[in-house]
């Protein structure tokens, strides 16, 4: 099977979004995504990165962010984001409900909601790092997102 794999190790900073997007788009094109589906992948990754920047690291600069992409041409794209910030529990996160009035607290949770709409699978994991995960023995978050062609 024709595969493409790449890893980007960078910092969780808004200025890195373009590099991250370029890597993910390269992998998505390899899979065979185009047009609106490419837009979906870009959007889900931006939302995931911004959750890491704003919540896991509370906008502190310099936090570790690793982006892994794995493409199987004609089948699926897997994107893994690893950070060493505050643990994230999707079950306790604010959940956006588009059927509710868009006022007050309803203004949060767009990002996670969009990620769920745009990707076929989302898996959130939290654990203690192994040496490969570059978090210096700190706990880490791992988000795995899958989109099938």
């Amino acid at each position, binding site marked *: 099977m024709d595969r493409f794999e790449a890893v980007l190790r960078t910092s969780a900073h*808004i*200025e890195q979004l373009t590099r991250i997007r370029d890597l993910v788009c390269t992998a998505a094109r390899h899979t065979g995504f185009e047009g609106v589906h490419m837009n979906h992948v870009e*959007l889900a990754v931006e939302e995931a990165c911004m959750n890491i920047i704003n919540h896991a690291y509370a906008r502190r600069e310099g936090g570790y962010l690793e982006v892994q992409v794995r493409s199987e041409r004609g089948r699926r794209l897997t994107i893994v984001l690893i950070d060493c910030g505050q643990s994230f529990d999707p079950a306790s996160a604010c959940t956006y409900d*588009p059927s509710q009035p*868009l006022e007050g607290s309803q*203004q949060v949770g767009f990002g996670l*909601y969009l990620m769920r709409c745009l990707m076929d699978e989302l898996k959130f994991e939290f654990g203690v790092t192994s040496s490969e995960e570059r978090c210096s023995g700190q706990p880490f978050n791992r988000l795995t997102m899958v989109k099938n062609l």
Partner: protein
Amino acid sequence: MTAAVPFDAQMEMLESPASTAVIRTAGRLDASTASRLERVLTDARTKGSRVILLNLEGLEYISSSGLRVLLSARTQTRQAGGDVFLFALSQPVREVFDMVGFSAVFNIFDTMDQALQAASILAGK
């Protein structure tokens, strides 16, 4: 690969209807550009715009950062007795709006003429 269009937001104050601004947007409204639109929207309100018409024809991408800016602008203008009207949404932006339910929240028009008509009615109240 097509290069992304840089984000741009240009404001024009209208003589008629009074207290109305038109903001034309283009490019990607994402986490790195949302604050620029926020500044333009704040500038429009500071200059006395009660009604803001947003031309989204050239906007090719919007993320939750952009959605929050639009929602905040709508809330603030409505609190002042005005509103934010959107028109000419591109297909990718319309899709995101539909996903998060914004299509049922914002007043959205196909053309600027339709948005201007709604602004005139609001300005006359």
